[in-house]
């Protein structure tokens, strides 16, 4: 009995010593890296921040990736050493011109933002339009400030699509109460040519072409971009409340960028279901299927997009996009055709916490995105290919974390990738 007790105490002591050792090991960070074998982060000090870039072979990529850290613009090429291109400006949503010469972005200020671009190697900043203005009366919120946000390039690299509240003071009386007297602050899609002196908001209003309208009261449109190799089509995310006014309808639309300009007076902004629409939905009108942040593949045949799963989880999907559906968007047959790829050919690539902001490699073989791990946003790379049997995209291998930015990578700014 006594011998058994001694043996038990020895075992008990050994167990506690083992626990203690494991605890110390954990506290001291001993015992090897907690990261997987496809990561080898090497830190770079930049602008006072230390960020890690994965130097493992699995994180190799071709071309240049532009992204923002604390809203400063950086570029990362095959050497995987980040270079800072802007300093002290609040840069958001870089977009590279199709001719590979320019990078456009928005620059945020209090109350307004500017549209700007510069060489992809950095250098002088060219302002396309400024939203600067003023408040008119003390105690009165009326003002002449404007937003210019989320630029993207036309196929000839001579115009920018962008979001703006340029028409906020327009009175859309045909919408009826309560919109006939209300400001329309929701952002809509416009286009402007580049290459002229910086425009004031008033000049921009004169020169800008309205491209896609928004619905009232839900913040407007997002993610506008031309479809590669299809100059007569753009894609964007449309936000609106459902007719009951309680649920979000978030859909991706395709549209002829000249539909509004070529049909003066035919289309207006509105609320859900209020009027004739120049666009056609390519994702369903379903409050449980909120689809956003489309990104066209370089060949223009597919989009990567995000679909909300719950309040914190999101899925990254890829689906083909139908052709010839923008000419007659209100035709039921056309609408059905536009939605068909979503129902039959959409494939889940990856899901997880706050997966967002997808963007393609120039060769279309990789999709990158932001993912939220260890309470911060970072860029991840995923190899993709088309399954020969199903004709649908699938992920090849495991996704690889490219950056370890320690909280400096901006979740609200989509990176861009060029050859």
């Amino acid at each position: 009995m006594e011998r058994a007790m001694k043996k038990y105490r020895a075992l008990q002591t050994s167990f506690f010593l083992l626990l203690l050792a494991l605890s110390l090991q954990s506290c001291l960070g001993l015992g090897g890296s907690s990261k997987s074998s496809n990561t080898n982060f090497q830190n770079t000090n930049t602008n006072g921040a230390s960020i890690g870039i994965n130097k493992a072979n699995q994180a190799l990529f071709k071309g240049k990736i532009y992204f923002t850290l604390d809203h400063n613009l950086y570029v990362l090429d095959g050497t995987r050493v980040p270079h800072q291109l802007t300093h002290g400006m609040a840069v958001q949503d870089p977009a590279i011109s199709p001719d590979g010469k320019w990078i456009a972005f928005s620059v945020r200020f209090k109350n307004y933002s500017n549209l700007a671009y510069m060489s992809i190697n950095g250098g002088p900043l060219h302002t396309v339009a400024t939203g600067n203005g003023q408040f008119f009366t003390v105690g009165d919120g009326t003002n002449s400030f404007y937003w210019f946000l989320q630029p993207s390039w036309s196929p000839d690299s001579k115009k920018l699509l962008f979001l703006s509240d340029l028409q906020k003071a327009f009175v859309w009386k045909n919408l009826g109460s309560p919109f006939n007297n209300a400001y329309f602050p929701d952002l809509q899609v416009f286009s402007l040519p580049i290459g002229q002196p910086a425009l004031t908001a008033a000049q921009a209003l004169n020169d800008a072409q309205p491209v896609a309208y928004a619905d009232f009261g839900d913040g407007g449109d997002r993610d506008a971009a031309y479809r590669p190799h299809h100059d007569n089509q753009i894609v964007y995310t449309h936000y609106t409340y459902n007719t009951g006014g309680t649920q979000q309808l978030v859909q991706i639309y395709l549209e002829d960028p000249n539909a509004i300009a070529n049909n003066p007076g035919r289309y207006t902004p509105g609320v859900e279901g209020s009027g004739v629409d120049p666009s056609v939905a390519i994702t369903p009108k379903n409050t449980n299927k909120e689809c956003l942040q489309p990104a066209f593949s370089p060949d223009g045949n597919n989009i990567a997009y995000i679909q909300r799963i719950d309040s914190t989880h999101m899925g990254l999907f890829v689906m083909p996009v139908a052709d010839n559906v923008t000419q007659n968007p209100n035709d039921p047959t056309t609408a059905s055709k536009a939605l068909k790829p979503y129902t039959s050919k959409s494939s889940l690539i990856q899901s997880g916490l706050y997966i967002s902001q997808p963007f393609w490699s120039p060769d279309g073989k990789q999709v990158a995105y932001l993912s939220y791990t260890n309470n911060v946003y970072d860029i991840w790379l995923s190899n993709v290919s088309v399954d020969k049997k199903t004709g649908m995209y699938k992920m090849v291998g495991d996704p690889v974390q490219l950056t370890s930015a320690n909280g400096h990578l901006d979740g609200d700014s989509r990176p861009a990738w060029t050859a």
Partner: protein
Amino acid sequence: MWARIVVAVMAVLLVALGSGLWYYQSNFATPITKITNQQAAHIGEDGQSANQLTTTGNGIGTKRINILLLGSDNDGKNQAPLAQTDIVVTIDPQTHYVGMLSIPRDLRVVIPDNGTGKLDAAFSFGWSNEHVGPTPFSNAVGLSIATIEKNFGIPINYYAWVGLDGFVKVIDTAGGVDIDAIHPITDNAYPDDVNTKDHFGYERLYIPPGPQHMNGMQALQYVRTRHADLVGDFGRSARQQQILDQLKVKLDTPSIVTKLPDLANDLGDTVKTDMSIQDIVNFMDFARTLNTNKIDRLILSPPYSAMANDKTGDFLPNCAMIMPKIAQMFALGNNANCITAAGTNTGSSLASFHSAIGAPIPMSALNTPTQNASLSQLNALSQNTGDTFGVHSLLDMMFLVVFDSFDATKV
């Protein structure tokens, strides 16, 4: 043998108690002293100072109590702050009835000894005028209470005041929040009234949709804006719930224990009440048990009020609708009151109000020394498991005022 064990146990207990007291005194006593038992000046309905400070009740017991919740920017560096939030909560412990009256800051009221003006100006006038209270803050609260009592006949038993920049500090101390913004947020005229010199200013907001990190100021903007939302407060409630869910995640992590002293300090200058810390804990314990669907809510926005046609931006009370409702909500009987202050706005139209504000008053004016936190407080609070030194309850009280909802007490 037993004597040695008893002595040893006693020694350990003494060391533990001493350490706990030292920890409390070092980290929590000062902020809790600055927060609690801050008496409001007693100002009569005629606007004249009475001889004593208001006396609070004897705790949340069995009698109906009314609590005035005030929210304002607390940056008094340049001018007296306005009360941007005025809510009266009424609790009948016997029937478990809970009512919540939200009074718009722009409602035109009679401000004792200051003519008529927007309700938010009562706090400012009290701050700037000389009354009996030891500090501008106590005068500000006192005049706010007197204004509510004069205009509606609602007796106020307690008050709690929250500075909006306290919310900003708390979020920043928690490391910010990461949320998926439901939809793009635009606001062409968001009140630029926190950490600013111009309390009447506006700013424009644009918050992109999707996952993003928000610091304290951005989170406050996300939960306060409502101008450009088709469904107004409904949309705002959905956004608030997102922030509350994130805060719950942040505050439930073990690492938050190390931040409790910082959180207490954040609250120290931005929450004030005449309740004791034990009263606050009791109040929040009670609040967390409420079925928020059964709370009787009344907001004096249209149709209970209508915009004045005199370009002041004031809203005039619709007394025919308000009187019976508040009589029922607060069990006032014939004591319910409502003043149709339809005359000229004499006190706080925006143009005249600037000139009415007194000289700059430093923030230190808020810090009224009162009795020190005691060992009995520590003992009382230590019995509340899961709410170390009442910090959680103080946070919940802050969220209740900022979010204007009892749902916020369930973080």
